[in-house]
C-alpha cells in the first residue's frame, strides 16, 4: 500500500545512536493497525491463512504463557503474510463463567449485597456493566506484544451472534441423542456451589487423620476393619469392598457387615479397583461421595444415599447429624464407635486432595443431576482425522497424546450451576415434572 504523509520516521530522520524500543514499538503497533495492515478481507483473492488464536478470559491479564503463545503464533502469521497469504489472526475473549462471576460477586460483597439478593436478571446486567468497565483489558496487552491480529474482528463468546452458534450446536447434539441428564459423581465446590471440570481443580497434599474402624459382621462373630480419612461419610456407606486376590479377606466376600452409627447391614464385595496395600485392604464404599466408590457402586448395583449437602455440611438424610459441619459429624460418628469398642486406631496421614482453583476449598465429590454430552459418536471422526494425520499436533508426542485422550474421552459434564454463561436451551413444563 502507498504510504501517507504522516509516515514517520522516514529517509533523512536521524537514527538515534542507541536503540530504545520504548515509544518505537508502540508507534508501530498503532500505525500497523491504523493503516489496516492487520486486516483480513473475505473478498481477498489470495489464499487464506487462519489462526483462530485461543481467546483469553475476558477478566484476565496477560501472563507469560499468553506472551509465548502470541510470540509463536505471530511469528508464523507474519511470515505467512509476507509470503502472500490473506492472513486472519483472530482476536477475542472467552466469557470465563466462574472467574467472571466470582469477580463480580466479590464486588457485590464489598457493596454489602449478593447475587442472590439481586436476582438472576439484575446480576447478569451487573456482569455486563462490570465487563464494559473492566473487561477486555487483555486485548490492549496483546497489542503491546505486537500481535498482528485483526482487532476489528474482536469476538466474545457471549455476543448475541456467538450465542446463536452455541444454541444451534446444543440443539444439534441434543437431537442426535447425545445430550442427556443423569445423576453421576462430579467435582463440587461447596463455596461456588457448582460442578467443576478437572481443569478447574488444583491438587495439594493435606495432613489428615486416618482412622481404622471395625465394622461388625452381620452374621456371627468377628469384624472387618476399614481405614478412612472421612468418617463423616460413614452413614452413606453401602458396602465394604476388598481386592479379589487379597487372601486376608477372601473368606468374607459375600457376607455382610454392619455400618456403624446407622447400623445398616451392607454386603462385602470383591472389586479389583480396591488398593489392597492401603490401610487394612478393606474399603468402605460410599458411592455418593467418592469417585472410585461411585464406579464400584454402579457396577455392583448398589444404592447411592447422599449425606453431604451442596453447602458441604451434613444434609438431613441422617437426622442426628443434620446441619453439622463434616468435622462435627466425624466426631459424633467416632464417639459412637469408641463407645462400642469399634475404634481401632488413629494415625496421621499426608495425602493428595483436590481443591477449587478459585477459592482453595476442598472439592466435594458429589452425586448430582447434571447434563452430559456423550463423546462416543462425536469423537469417532476426530480420532480418524488424527490417525490419518489430516490434523497434526506438534511435537509428535502430543499427537499421540491427543489420539489417546480422545479415545479415552468420557461423557462430558456440560452443565454448571452458575448464572454467568449460556443458559441451557431446555424448558420443562409444569405438567411434566
Amino acid at each position, binding site marked *: 500500500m502507498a504510504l501517507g504523509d504522516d509516515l514517520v520516521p522516514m529517509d533523512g530522520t536521524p537514527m538515534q545512536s542507541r536503540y530504545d524500543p520504548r515509544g518505537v514499538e508502540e508507534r508501530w503497533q498503532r500505525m500497523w493497525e491504523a493503516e489496516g495492515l492487520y486486516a483480513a478481507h473475505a473478498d481477498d483473492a489470495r489464499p487464506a491463512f487462519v489462526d483462530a488464536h485461543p481467546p483469553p478470559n475476558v477478566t484476565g491479564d*496477560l501472563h507469560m504463557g499468553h506472551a509465548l503463545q502470541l510470540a509463536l503464533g505471530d511469528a508464523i502469521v507474519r511470515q505467512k503474510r509476507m509470503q502472500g497469504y490473506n492472513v486472519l489472526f483472530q482476536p477475542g475473549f472467552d466469557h470465563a463463567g466462574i472467574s467472571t462471576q466470582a469477580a463480580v460477586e466479590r464486588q457485590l460483597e464489598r457493596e454489602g449485597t449478593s447475587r442472590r439478593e439481586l436476582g438472576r436478571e439484575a446480576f447478569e446486567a451487573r456482569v455486563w456493566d462490570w465487563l464494559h468497565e473492566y473487561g477486555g483489558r487483555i486485548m490492549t496487552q496483546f497489542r503491546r506484544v505486537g500481535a498482528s491480529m485483526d482487532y476489528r474482528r474482536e469476538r466474545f463468546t457471549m455476543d448475541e451472534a456467538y450465542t446463536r452458534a452455541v444454541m444451534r450446536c446444543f440443539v444439534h447434539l441434543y437431537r442426535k441423542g447425545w445430550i442427556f441428564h443423569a445423576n453421576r459423581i462430579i467435582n463440587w465446590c461447596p463455596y461456588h456451589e457448582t460442578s467443576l471440570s478437572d481443569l478447574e481443580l488444583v491438587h495439594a497434599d493435606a495432613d489428615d487423620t486416618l482412622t481404622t474402624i471395625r465394622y461388625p459382621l452381620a452374621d456371627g462373630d468377628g469384624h472387618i476393619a476399614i481405614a478412612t480419612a472421612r468418617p463423616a461419610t460413614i452413614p452413606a456407606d453401602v458396602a465394604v469392598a476388598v481386592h479379589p486376590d487379597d487372601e486376608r479377606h477372601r473368606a468374607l466376600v459375600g457376607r455382610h457387615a454392619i455400618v456403624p452409627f446407622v447400623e445398616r447391614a451392607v454386603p462385602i464385595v470383591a472389586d479389583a479397583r480396591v488398593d489392597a496395600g492401603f490401610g487394612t485392604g478393606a474399603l468402605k464404599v460410599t458411592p455418593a461421595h467418592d469417585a472410585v466408590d461411585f464406579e464400584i457402586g454402579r457396577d455392583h448395583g448398589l444404592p447411592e444415599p447422599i449425606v453431604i449437602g451442596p453447602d458441604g455440611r451434613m444434609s438431613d438424610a441422617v437426622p442426628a447429624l443434620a446441619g453439622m459441619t463434616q468435622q462435627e459429624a466425624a466426631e459424633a460418628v467416632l464417639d459412637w464407635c469408641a463407645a462400642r469398642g469399634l475404634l481401632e486406631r488413629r494415625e496421621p496421614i499426608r495425602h493428595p486432595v483436590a481443591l477449587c482453583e478459585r477459592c482453595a476449598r476442598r472439592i466435594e465429590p458429589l452425586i448430582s443431576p447434571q447434563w452430559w454430552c456423550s463423546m462416543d459418536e462425536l469423537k469417532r471422526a476426530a480420532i480418524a482425522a488424527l490417525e490419518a494425520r489430516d490434523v497434526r499436533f506438534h511435537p509428535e508426542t502430543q499427537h499421540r497424546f491427543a489420539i489417546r485422550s480422545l479415545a479415552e474421552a468420557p461423557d462430558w459434564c456440560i452443565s454448571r450451576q452458575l448464572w454467568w454463561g449460556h443458559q441451557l436451551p431446555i424448558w420443562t413444563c409444569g405438567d411434566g415434572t
Partner: protein
Amino acid sequence: MGASAADLDLRRRHLTVEEIEPRACRECGSADLTREQDVLDTWFSSALWPFATLGWPDDTPDLRAFYPGDLQTTAREIIRLWENRMIACGLELLGELPFRDVIIHPTLLARDGRRMSKSLGTGVDPLDVIAEYGADATRYGLLKLSSSQDVRFSTEAIVEGRRLANKLWNVSRLLLQAGGGEVEPRPATVEERWVLARIDATRAELESRLAAFDFAPAVQALYHLTFDEFCDWYAEAVKPRLYERDADAVATALAALERLLALVHPFMPHLSEEIWSQLPGRTTRLIVARWPEPQGEYAADAHALDRVRAAATVFRRAGVAPTGLDDDERRIFDAVVRPGRTPAGADAEAERARLRAEIARAEAMLANDRFRERAPAAVVGAERDKLARYRSELAAIGG
C-alpha cells in the same frame, strides 16, 4: 454406565429443547414452561471458536473465506478440554477440520521450577519484561526458550534478544549513514557474494524450521547470521568501501540489509520495521513486504570465508599470523581482525603441533567403531565438526 433410581425420575420429565424460547411443551402442549437454570461449561462455547467467530451458523462470506483454518497454538493441558472438542465439533457441524496444525507449546515454569502463579508469587509479568527490554527482545527470548516441553523462565534469553536488537540497530546505522539512494545487489567482492549466500542459506533454514514449528533453532540461526556473519564479518570487511561511498558497495549493503530485515521481521517486527522505514525509496511497510525469494546465484560462495574465519580464530587464540591466504582473504583478514592492534610474537610451531595433536585425537575417536555406534549422534557430529575446524585452522597457519 448404569442409571440410578433418581435417573428414572429425570427421564420422566417433558423436555423441550429449542434454539429460541418455545411457547409450548413439545410433548403435552403446556404453556407453563420453565427454563433450566444451569449454564453451559465455558468450554462448550470454546469448542465452536474457529467457526462461531466467522458467523456460523449463517453461511457468511467470512466463513467461506476463512474456514477451514490452518493453525492453533495451545498448552498441553488444554488438549482434552479444547483442541479435541474443536476438532470433533468442526467435523460434526461443518464436515471439515477447523485447522491442520496444532502447536503444543511448552509450559513456562518459574526460575526455581515451580509453576508460574500470581498467588505463589512466582509469576513474572510480561508487561514488566516488555517495558524493560522491549516486546521484540521478549518475543525473541520466549522463542529461544521454547525448545522443550517444560521450560524454566529466565531473562538471559531476553537479554540476548536485546543484544541482537542493539547489534542490528548499530550495523544498520553504519550502512545507512553511507548515504546511498539505491537498494540493489551489485556484489563486486567475495565477502558481498558470501553474505548474500549466507542470508539465502538462513532464509532456507528459517523456512524449514518454521514449517516444522521449531522456533528455538530458528531464532538461533537468525542470531548467528546477524551477529557473526553480517555484523562481525561482512560489515567489518566492507566498511572501508562504505567510508569511500562506493556506490556499488552501498547499494549492495542496503540490499543485503533489506533481505536480513525481512528475515528478522516475524520474530522482531518493530525493530525491523523501524530500520526498514529508513531504507531509501520505501513505498511499502515491511509487515506486508515480500518474504525473500530464493537467491541461488551466490551459493558457490557460501563457504568462501571459511578459511579466513579459521585464521582469525587461531590468531585471536594463539596470536599466530595466517599464511597462505589469497589477496581477498588477506584484505578481509586485515579489515576484520586488524592484526596490527593485537600483540603478535606467538609460537606458530607450537600451535601447529597442538592442532596436529587435536586432529590425531579426533581422528582416532572417529575411527573407533564403538564410539561411532554407541555415542549419541549429536556427540559424534560435534566431534566431526571439531575435526573439520582443527583442520581448517591448521591449514590457515600453513600446517
